């Protein structure tokens, strides 16, 4: 079983990555055999911008996309910028094929300077993954600066991880192969008046 962790934090170290790591470790406690691959979007920022321009991912970005699309579960964590996910976070998911995450269990989480932005998870990240037909865990985890020293964050992390673990155990839909093609006779027949 494989888990991909996407962190869109920009500073080093970042609280976004810290939250991603906490979520990951709570998931690993429940699914010890899981293989974890962490993708720091900061390292791929130029490749992601280039993909937007050229239409294809360079090899390092391709490997990251493959890790995400082939994983059994995804932890996706973004800082909240200007009332939404960061542009880098969105751009990464923009360059992934829009069918590639269908049926994928996803845990969404975000960090921010103030708790006033916590609903960005519900009005930005959750609809984005709904569009991608991913299965988003009911609990989304938001960590504002003050949460790191307060009670409650750990419980939310545990609850979200246990939901993701439950979703990852379920059977996922089989995706169509890229080179499957509708036989030409059928394509012609569909056009007959």
């Amino acid at each position: 079983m494989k888990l991909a962790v996407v962190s869109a934090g920009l500073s080093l170290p970042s609280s976004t990555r810290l939250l991603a790591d906490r979520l990951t470790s709570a998931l690993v406690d429940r699914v010890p055999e899981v293989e974890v691959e962490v993708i720091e979007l900061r390292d791929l920022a130029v490749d992601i911008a280039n993909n937007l321009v050229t239409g294809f991912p360079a090899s390092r970005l391709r490997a990251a996309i493959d890790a995400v699309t082939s994983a059994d579960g995804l932890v996706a964590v973004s800082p909240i910028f200007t009332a939404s996910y960061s542009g880098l976070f969105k751009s990464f998911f923009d360059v992934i094929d829009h069918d590639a995450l269908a049926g994928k269990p996803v845990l969404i989480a975000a960090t921010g300077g103030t708790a006033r932005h916590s609903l960005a998870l519900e009005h930005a990240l959750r609809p984005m993954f709904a569009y991608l037909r991913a299965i988003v865990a009911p609990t989304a985890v938001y960590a504002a600066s003050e949460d790191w020293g307060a009670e409650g964050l750990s419980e939310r992390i545990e609850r979200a991880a246990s939901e993701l673990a439950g979703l990852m155990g379920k059977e996922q839909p089989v995706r169509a192969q890229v080179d499957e093609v509708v036989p030409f006779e059928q394509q012609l027949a569909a056009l007959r008046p």
Partner: protein
Amino acid sequence: MQFGIFTVSDVTTDPTTGRTPTEAERIKAMVTIALKAEEVGLDVFATGEHHNPPFVASSPTTMLGYIAARTERLILSTSTTLITTNDPVKIAEDFAMLQHLADGRVDLMMGRGNTGPVYPWFGKDIRDGIPLAIENYALLHRLWREPVVDWEGRFRTPLQGYTSTPAPLDGVPPFVWHGSIRSPEIAEQAAYYGDGFFANNIFWPKEHYQQLISLYRRRYAHYGHGLPEQAIVGLGGQVFMRRNSQDAVREFRPYFDNAPVYGHGPSLEEFMAETPLTVGSPDQVIERTLKFREYFGDYQRQLFLMDHAGLPLKTVLEQLDILGEEVVPVLRKEFAIGRPANVPDAPTHQSLLAQKG
């Protein structure tokens, strides 16, 4: 194996001088480039078809007819002819006419066109892109093979007792390639008819085109046209050469950095590593191009994009000299080595006429 060039006919400012050619200069330059292609021993010149600035090639058969009159040997082709927005009845007429004028030195490549706003200019809807490509080509295929056609379809008025004129030269329709950047449906269409399949092989990594070509080869065999390795494959490519590879990189970099499509994105070095673009010495171009056979199998036609991104005519003509004198002769020799006897050449008017008997 055939070698040639294809142009997209872009009018682009030369980033090193800030000068933009006029449409007239660009159109005449394309003709000069085509004539040069024949002079340096290339086999094919193909022009794109576009109906929006910054492109000038809106009327390919007009241009190819003019080039036909001034050449002897060059095969005139397209890259691509829009099978979606052109009326197939007019394509049948135009290219049959061109065949007669050019004594059969004509083939063409079908493409869909990917510019949404162009479709309504010709009364079409881009959402019908694939169905238009399928229905229009099915009609075109009949118009070139049946003297009198009764036809009814979804996208144009029915035909009753219609005869396309002139009939194809010697009763042999022009050979057709189908070009696609991303659609398996088009690879399937090419396979169904036993037509050629052309992969532009420019913008993306080779793995992408490998998938499409291997699908085409498999389906070509499925439809009984021959073995997978006998399917008719064409590839694009883009190169820039100077004797010394550093000179090539230095001279081409501003054109690359400002090029339409991929400019202002990855570095030249990254793009060379990820796509088939080669900027360097003639030997490097030879080495890289010979690799295409390993990736895609023995193939029939190699076209290079040479005249884009604002490169001045003088430079393009120098490039064609290098291509014709130093690169293609070596490629011809090397591609012939170890090429299985059962792999056919690209069909020409003469070979199709002989086959017809």
